[in-house]
């Protein structure tokens, strides 16, 4: 099955980045329609009816989230979460780089629905080139009256600021993002109150992912019913899926939700290198529990199917491991990331990620005993649900799943090293397969 491009349509055209190019493809017609012909409540209802689910990880219904904001005149805010930092995810980067005006139009319409007068794009500091693209596009949008005071001759206003982060995965967590945007260290907040009630500067705040907001102009232009014609009943629409790891054509593919996962990995992304087989994959970024090839490849790629299989669609980022990849090393690589990125506020996450790294290092060095694997597993269980945010859970879920599903491999790693196989010194060896056979330059 080929791709179904809504968000990435015309994305190959470099002119799409400019206001003229975007308008040439019918851009900003949805904004005109929403601002001039619709009431805020109508826009909100259209978004709720569309069933659009958040594309940042949690998959919460976008319209419903917007409806949680209190009504009435007050300072309300919209934050676009562009702090895409989860290993395996790179779809928002593509959307911002190739079609910044689609996002700006989506933000303007969503702000209208939520009654927000101030909007922010919180973009990760590493995306410098994309932030430049956004800055240029925002300036163009102000110039053309799509942002600012009295948008397109109406009496509606919206200020939009592109805010660059400075390198911290935790800022993708919505309340940490708010703290960072308020100029503090990015520590998560206790919930409730949820941001919809008390968020940025204490005001009601709607926080949505780049891809979620990029869907909004299409829904307003074509209607909720049209949108529901794509995807499945519980996962309507298309999804830009980032496929990476051991595949021949890594990259972003936009597909209807619900297509077989096998098509994404084997057909679109080309599958693993000659002579290799898929061993396991993360279906929704590094924080999703890994699925073995035999349990995951034939599942439909949808929120509900992945949840039913005990994993999650998350941000829609597939990382494929072929049979050359050592799962204990992959678990360690995963754990190290979360250990480094833990903000340190909650003990189970701060200590749990630290000890998990240490124990997994013992495993790959052959210093561990099979009992240690039970301890690793129990540490993961004691992290989940015990912190202010899900950063710790995001390590515990995939690492726990790897220990559970590939236990023999962990035990073999322990046994092999203790029988005199070379222990891992200061660094972990790369996969046993040669990376050059993966077609890295295609």
């Amino acid at each position, binding site marked *: 099955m080929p791709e179904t491009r809504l968000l990435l349509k015309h994305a190959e055209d470099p002119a799409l980045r400019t206001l003229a190019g975007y308008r040439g493809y019918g851009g900003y017609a949805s904004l005109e329609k929403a601002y001039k012909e619709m009431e805020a409540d109508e826009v909100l209802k259209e978004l709720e009816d569309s069933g659009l689910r958040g594309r940042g990880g949690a998959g919460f219904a976008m319209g419903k989230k917007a409806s949680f904001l209190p009504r009435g005149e007050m300072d309300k805010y919209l934050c676009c979460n562009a702090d895409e*930092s989860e290993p395996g995810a790179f779809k928002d980067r593509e959307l911002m780089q190739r079609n910044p005006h689609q996002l700006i139009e989506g933000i303007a319409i969503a702000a209208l629905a939520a009654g927000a007068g101030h909007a922010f794009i919180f973009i990760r500091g590493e995306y410098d080139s994309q932030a430049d693209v956004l800055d240029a596009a925002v300036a163009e949008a102000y110039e053309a009256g799509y942002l600012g005071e009295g948008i397109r001759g109406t009496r509606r206003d919206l200020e939009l600021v592109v805010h660059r982060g400075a390198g911290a995965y935790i800022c993708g967590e919505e309340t940490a993002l708010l703290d960072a945007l308020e100029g503090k260290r990015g520590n998560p907040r206790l919930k409730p109150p949820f941001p919809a009630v008390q968020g940025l500067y204490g005001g009601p705040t709607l926080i949505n992912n780049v891809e979620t907001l990029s869907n909004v102009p299409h829904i307003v232009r074509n209607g909720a019913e049209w949108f529901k014609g794509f995807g499945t009943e519980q996962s309507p629409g298309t999804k830009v899926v980032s496929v990476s790891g051991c595949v021949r054509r890594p990259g972003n593919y936009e597909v209807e939700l619900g297509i077989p996962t096998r098509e994404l990995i084997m057909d679109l992304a080309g599958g693993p290198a000659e002579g290799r087989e898929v061993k396991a994959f993360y279906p929704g970024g590094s924080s999703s529990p890994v699925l073995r090839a035999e349990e995951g490849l034939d599942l439909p790629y949808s929120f509900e199917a992945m949840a039913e299989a005990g994993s999650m669609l998350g941000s829609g980022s597939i990382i494929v491991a072929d049979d050359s990849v050592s799962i204990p090393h992959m678990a360690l690589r995963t754990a190290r990331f979360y250990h480094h990125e833990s903000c340190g506020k909650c003990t189970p996450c701060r200590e749990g990620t630290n000890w998990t790294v240490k124990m997994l290092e013992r495993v790959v060095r052959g210093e561990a005993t099979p009992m240690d694997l039970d301890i690793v597993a129990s540490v993961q269980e004691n992290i989940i649900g015990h912190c202010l945010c899900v950063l710790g859970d995001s390590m515990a879920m995939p690492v726990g799943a790897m220990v559970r599903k590939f236990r023999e491999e962990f035990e073999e790693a322990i046994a092999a090293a203790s029988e005199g196989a070379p222990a891992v010194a200061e660094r972990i060896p790369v996969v046993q397969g040669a990376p050059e056979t993966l077609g890295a*330059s295609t």
Partner: protein
Amino acid sequence: MSPVDGIGIDNRDLPVDRAVNEGRVPDRSPQEIPELHEVDCPEELRRRIEELMSKYPDRKSASIPALWAVQRLYGWCTPEGIRQAAAVMRVTPAYLESVASFYDLLHTEPVGGHKVHVCTNISCWMRGGDELLDAFRAAAGEDADLFVTGFECLGACDIAPMASIDERYFGPLETGEAATAIEQLRAGAEVLPEKALEKRPLPGGPDA
């Protein structure tokens, strides 16, 4: 005071604030907001930070952008630069230092002018990110003008293994291209033009 080596983890040169290990004592009392006339803030920096503050409902929101401005001017977040920003923003230097020390891209220690971040996370690791980092290290040698470090996922797994060189993305890179890139940096030439992310088409080709 002898520095304590590491904090018990193999951090693979991920940024760790040495102050944490060395127990560095701040030079001045952290509670005081410095006055502008005390800090000799360059006019351009002051104007830039004031402009940044005006974009937000609360001026403190400008702390990260202000620290970026300091880093762009001085190469890193120098104690003097932080004091200057603090004086303009009317916050304590300690407050800004707490922010600067939280984020990986803000440096509270001197670093080289050219910054090379090599991703060593899952997808890049699978495709040779560690070897690429080693190659960049070897090519850079002891050159103080080059800051080469491993980094957590940069959000470009499609071009794994990849590196961010002076805030632009390049990949997929062969280990041999590390030396080329370093030479180009030293010569002030354009770095690996054919490997720039911006020039990469969508993997699925143009619209069907």
